[in-house]
């Protein structure tokens, strides 16, 4: 469909109107969806890692929102970048709500504990949302299976696809 936008791993997008954002497979990655239901503006980030370990953080003013960007690589930065991007196209922070999907442990024995990258991704996204005062409306996180989602900006609904 022409109003569909496919998002790649590490990518971040803010959009409006009747667009549908579709992700690829989500394993231990965390997908963060933030939606302003008044303005019908939404954003999505497909983050791979909880936080950056080096000090090359990009200033909010120069975050890259162009297609195939990598502004969504780190979960905590993704939350800040999404809020910044959404505000820029007319969303209000007091109307924003978030949905989280992902953070699975694909290999139970070797990644299943609380040090696993999936668990850290969930925690990082939750903490950063809390810091910014954004409520988590719903989440489907953890577990041991992969998923993919579509995020409909007409109504803010997230469809989770678990079948293979």
């Amino acid at each position, binding site marked *: 469909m022409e109003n569909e936008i496919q998002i*790649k*791993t*590490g*990518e971040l997008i803010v959009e409006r109107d009747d667009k549908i954002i579709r992700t*690829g*497979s*989500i*394993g*231990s*990655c965390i997908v963060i969806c933030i939606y302003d239901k008044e303005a019908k503006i939404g954003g999505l980030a497909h983050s*791979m*890692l*909880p936080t*950056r*370990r*080096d000090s090359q953080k990009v200033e909010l003013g120069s975050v890259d929102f162009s297609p195939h960007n*990598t502004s969504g*690589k*780190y979960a905590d930065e993704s939350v800040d970048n999404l809020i910044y991007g959404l505000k820029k196209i007319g969303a209000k922070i007091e109307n924003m709500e978030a949905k989280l999907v992902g953070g*699975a*442990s*694909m*290999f*139970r*024995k*070797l*990644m299943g504990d609380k040090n*696993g*990258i*999936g668990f850290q*991704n969930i925690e990082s996204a939750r903490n950063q949302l809390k810091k910014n005062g954004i409520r988590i409306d719903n989440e489907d996180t953890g577990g*041991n*299976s*992969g*998923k*993919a989602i579509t995020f409909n900006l007409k109504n803010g609904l997230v469809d989770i696809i678990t079948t*293979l």
Partner: protein
Amino acid sequence: MIKQILTEEENDQLKEITNIGIGNASTALSTMIGKKVTMTVPESYTGGIEEVQRIIGKSDEKVIATFLKFTGEFKGAMVMILSPKSALNFISILNNSKNDNVEGISENDKSALQEMGNILLGASITAINKFLNLNLIHSIPDISIDRSGAVLDSVLAEMGSVSGDILVFKVKLDIKEENMEGDFFYLFDPVSSSKILEMIKIKIK
């Protein structure tokens, strides 16, 4: 970024190490199942984990993935990715059991696939240990039946979590007479890559 650190010569040296490992592994597999096993020259991918994921993990196909980590002088991991058809073929050779789909396979069949990963990685690690005089040890294998993209993003994130960059070698194994093939990925973080290179430099002096 690894891209800037590795020269072409260094990339070739790392490829050669992977080659030594996988060469030994395919011989082990060939001996075990009594069939001719061919393998490709390793392809390497370096860069941010999201860029590597976009290249190697783009499909949403169902796969059977066996994953092992290794530790010692440096850390890394190996993933063996099989299509459902190839996995079922392997199971029928190894366990002599017939299955119509991968959802129906028994714990015993899963165990056979893990054991295959174990043998392949065990053989590669032994070869690398011998060549570079190291003491790498590997973990028990773990298995996941899921989307290839979801499996690979987890593995890449797990191995590249420190710097966000990764070095991956991909090798294709082929057993023509049984119409089977599998992809093998060796993953190293940038710190491990530079340690291996140092050891190669000592070795070839």
